[in-house]
């Protein structure tokens, strides 16, 4: 046992001697959580939309749009100014409304709004909400214009009747509630989801970097000398694995503790979360051992580490929440340990789950760990002694 511990602790020591590794383990994860969190989790960060045009119709529509909280609106004076803003990507979308828009609608004529879309998906995502605000505010004018086509009555008379009717009726209200009864406007989703994703990504990635150290040990002949000592091959393999596991576990607990303190991230039931981390770190350690056993030089291992670490992370919901995945991709995501761990964390932090609730995910992760570790142990037994 002491031998296992000393192999493991030397692996940890080696990792922390490298100052750059310190950055990656201690500083970098917090930096990403902060940067991504401030990009996506900030409520004030609704997409910027600009509107050109004057008059009561535009004022009302803009007010309605701002009330939805889906966009933050900037008023500009001219359509040319609007075009510049969109072209320079200062706003994702611009709407140019003719100054006589409401009168034109009241007169029964259609009116054309120019929607200037910025490049990329951001503009089309917000377009629907923006246009619905204008449509909603155009209802009275629309109805006046339509009635005008049916009768000879004067436009002003019709307008008056419509205005009176609008004032008399109570508009349809939409009651939003969250299933389970919470208030939809204080949705905690955001920084929590980002922190879970980054924790899994960085834990896996940093444990995986341990693969290079394993290859170096072999290249320098350290492994063969270890085998030459009265230490069984099994103990060496276990010790090397424990070292990788320790790195992963340290990283995970560090991110959990610091994000909880600095950003107020809630991790739910702490003992259950720690068990989950331990199993996930074991999966990462297994993967690191396997890469270290299979690859021949540490530059190749570095390439594989980045590809596997980031690729599995992206696929497993570390960069985009799994809830936004399409049905097919959500199924594909289940080939990654990240997706299972992610699901378990969401259960713990958002739904107040306990250890019992995440047993299925823990089971799958444990299976990942066992398979990877056994493969790695089998390969390592062959390669550790190879010159």
């Amino acid at each position, binding site marked *: 046992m002491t031998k296992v511990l000393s192999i493991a602790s030397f692996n940890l020591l080696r990792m922390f001697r490298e100052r750059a590794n310190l950055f990656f383990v201690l500083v970098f994860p917090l930096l990403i959580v902060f940067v991504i969190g401030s990009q996506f989790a900030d409520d004030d960060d609704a997409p910027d939309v600009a509107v050109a045009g004057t008059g009561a119709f535009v004022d009302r529509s803009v007010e309605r749009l701002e009330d939805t909280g889906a966009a933050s609106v900037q008023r500009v004076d001219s359509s040319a100014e609007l075009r510049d803003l969109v072209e320079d990507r200062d706003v994702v979308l611009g709407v140019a409304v003719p100054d006589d828009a409401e009168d034109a609608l009241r007169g029964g004529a259609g009116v054309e709004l120019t929607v200037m879309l910025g490049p990329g998906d951001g503009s089309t995502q917000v377009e629907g909400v923006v246009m619905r605000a204008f449509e909603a505010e155009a209802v009275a004018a629309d109805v006046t214009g339509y009635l005008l086509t049916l009768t000879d009555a004067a436009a002003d008379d019709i307008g008056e009747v419509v205005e009176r009717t609008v004032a008399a009726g109570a508009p*349809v209200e939409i009651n939003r509630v969250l299933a389970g009864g919470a208030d939809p406007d204080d949705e905690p989703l955001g920084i929590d989801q980002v922190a879970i994703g980054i924790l899994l990504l960085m834990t896996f990635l940093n444990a995986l970097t341990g693969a290079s150290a394993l290859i170096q040990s072999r290249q320098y002949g350290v492994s063969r000398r270890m085998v030459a000592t009265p230490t069984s091959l099994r103990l060496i393999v276990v010790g090397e694995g424990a070292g990788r596991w320790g790195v992963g576990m340290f990283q995970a607990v560090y991110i959990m503790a610091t994000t909880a303190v600095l950003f107020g991230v809630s991790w739910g039931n702490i003992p259950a979360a720690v068990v989950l981390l331990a199993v996930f770190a074991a999966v990462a350690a297994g993967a690191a051992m396997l890469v270290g056993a299979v690859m021949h030089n540490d530059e190749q291992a570095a390439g594989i580490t980045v590809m596997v670490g980031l690729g599995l992370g992206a696929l497993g919901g570390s960069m985009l929440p799994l809830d936004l995945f399409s049905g097919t991709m959500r199924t594909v995501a289940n080939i990654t340990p990240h997706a299972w761990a992610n699901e378990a964390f969401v259960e713990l932090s958002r739904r107040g789950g306990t250890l019992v609730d995440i047993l299925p995910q823990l089971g799958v992760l444990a299976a990942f760990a066992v398979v990877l570790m056994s493969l790695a142990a089998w390969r390592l037994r062959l390669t550790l002694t190879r010159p």
Partner: protein
Amino acid sequence: MSAVVTITAKDLKERLRDKSFFLLGILTPLVLAFVLDLVMGDLGEGQLEVDIAVVDADGSVVSSQLRAGIAGLDGEGGLEVTVLDADADPDAVIDADGYDAVIVIPDDFGDRVTADGGSAPELGLVENPDRPVQAGVAESIVVGFTTNIERARLLARAADELGLDVAPVPPATGIELDRVWPGGEGLDTGARMMAGMAVMFVFFTVQFGVTTLLDEKKSGTLTRLLAAPIRRDSITAAKGAVSFLLGVLATMILMVTGTLLMGADWGPWLGVSALVVSAVLTAVALMAIVAGIAKTSEGASAAQAIIAVGLAMLGGSWFPVSGEGLMGLLAKMTPHYWFLNGLEDLTDATTWTVVGRPVLAMAVIAVVAGVPAAVLLRRRLRP
């Protein structure tokens, strides 16, 4: 000069023989761009899958029209609509069947809509707490239908007061949309991811040149090079050239692969080449600084990885960043930002010269980083 060529050729041959260059320089960014495209490619309007259910507890004419209208959206642009029984419990069905949102039409909805005065008609929207984005889409849909109801309701009442007969089918809005893309439609998600990964990984690829100076020192070959009757600058020049050539080679391969595999349309190739060349130059300069400071090649690799990943994140390789605020200012200091923005402009441009500004910005970064890099690397050239 011939010394530069000889060293460059030898290093290039060595690098291309080793699998690391292909693995880290080409395969990894390719795989990541592909995965990211798969994951993030279907978030646009009409692509996000939204699963909505409708409960009509009313059964009136108004509510049936509304229900039928919502149900009619089934299959359109990623929407899936299910009509549930009138007595279904929204919380329970969301829990059991995982709907993103359930629209509830309460039993007095029709009466309240048609009644004169009285309390406001209400529509319920029960959202799945795990799916705020999809629920937002559902809300937007409900708002659209509410506007239609308001229009029909107002029309019926006003017509009634004016003594007019109106058709039961409400008129559509008189608002028409003219959709334009003043700055072009930009790159699609797949192309953007490919460009983002290409510029991120070129920072790893160029290591295979400048950082080998540290390896040469360790293995003693640097001393032998110094003993040879060649100018010292030839050695640094050759290492820089290797970095540059490998970087351009890898990035161009990725850009071409992007057109072939993902159907990316980058615009004029002359512009693409100008952007690639200047981005690679900045990468060589920045990575050379690290190689000039680091003590060992392992330390250099790790520090370079920090810089590569950090700059890529700030500069928009992973997700688009806006040019505003503090984050925008930081973004503008990265070559990634200029490379990606240059490509966004180029794809809709008629002439390649639109990349002038981004190329100039990257040239500035390359010079600012390149001068200290050259000095530092030269200091390395000691036996």
